């Protein structure tokens, strides 16, 4: 144990502050951007459930059993990347990227 420890760089919690004080506003904006995304999903889910219910389908159980196809997985990944890029853009103080 002690023999290995001498090779390790000592962790310094104070040095682990990744964001500088001038990034606190950007953090706030990132939080707003993220809340917007969460809202969009909340809205979409409510719409979906309402539409399915109109067709007599109880979605909740079916959703838990669902396995995405490779195509759907690809589409989901693209959406995920856009979500991450939007949040990161705010965090970095950059313009929100256009859809690709």
């Amino acid at each position: 144990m002690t023999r290995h420890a001498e090779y390790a760089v000592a962790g310094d919690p104070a040095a682990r502050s990744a964001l500088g004080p001038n990034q606190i506003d950007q953090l706030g904006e990132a939080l707003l951007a993220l809340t917007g995304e969460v809202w969009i999903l909340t809205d979409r889910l409510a719409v979906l459930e309402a539409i399915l219910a109109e067709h007599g389908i109880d979605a909740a159980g079916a959703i838990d059993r669902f396995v995405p196809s490779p195509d759907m997985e690809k589409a989901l990944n693209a959406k995920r990347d856009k979500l991450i890029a939007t949040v990161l853009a705010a965090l970095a103080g950059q313009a929100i990227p256009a859809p690709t």
Partner: protein
Amino acid sequence: METPTLASPRLAQRGRAAINFQAGIGIASARLLAQAERALADRGITADTLPEDMDARHDTVAHVIGDHPAFRLNTLLSEWRAKSHGPVARDAFEEQRDQLVPALHALDAGPSRLVEEPIPPLPSYWADTEFHRTEGGWDSSAYNGYVHGEILHKLMLAKMFPGDIFAQRRAAASAAPRRDYARILDMGASSGHYTVALAEIFPAARITGIDLSPRMLEHAARSGNARGQAWQLHVRPAEDTGLPAESFDLVTSFNLLHELPPPVIDAVFAETFRLLAPGGDMLMSDVPRFAELDRLTAWRFDHLAKWGGEPFWRASASMDLAAAATRAGFTGVTAGGIGTAPTFHPYLIQGRKPA
């Protein structure tokens, strides 16, 4: 009367919910500001005790409630919304592009048109300013007339701003002293919201619209065609239209003047005078005069204008428009707000070119 595309823009779910969220943030932001103003009052600062100078007013507010959580959060929300509303609306359009583009081009044919002619040199105060803090300003994308005029106005601004923003335009147009104008010029017609009100109040008039933004006017032409109107639209500066002297009976504008530096406002009044036939009427509507508001209300406008990308608002709202109109030669000049306290928005200025 309006096509569904214009009356209530049909967005896909993501765009609809994202715009709806922007409106929610705008409403939350206004609530936070009201809360911050109450904190200001609790600490003894009111409309009556704020200093006269606007910069000093901002300093006082910053000194007294600068670290109040509601004020800080209002700042955060304002900043984020100013930067994000443009991209959100642009993306909402893109998401529906395949449906919207053909629907919009179906409205290209008709009696309203953007007249094809060489585009005059664009003044630097317009071309070099990113109005509303949207990258590219008024002409930021090929369909920005629809993005700004319909998506943002109908699905965001109309839900956030107090009062009915379209009824305000009808009220302004209705304030004109006559109903029988044959030739009307709408200066700063943009995507055509005020032009719609003019066509409604003066159904027999021949309406011409000018603006510096081709993207906005293209949309105004579609909006005119959707209503069977024959509007002639030109890309021209209001201060130097190149249109024939004495060729209009009413020259009017809604929310143009606060986009202009004061010397250009003077030039617009002079040009208006030149364009009117003797006995013709001038009617301009814009944001309230700071000097006629209580100091807290004026400070609030200035605060919102600063975040909203409105660089000339303060200088323009500090200008005495009645004096400017009188300098230009107008007689019987009247000015004042026609809305409700404490802003009395919209503010109207009227005068006549002597017969």
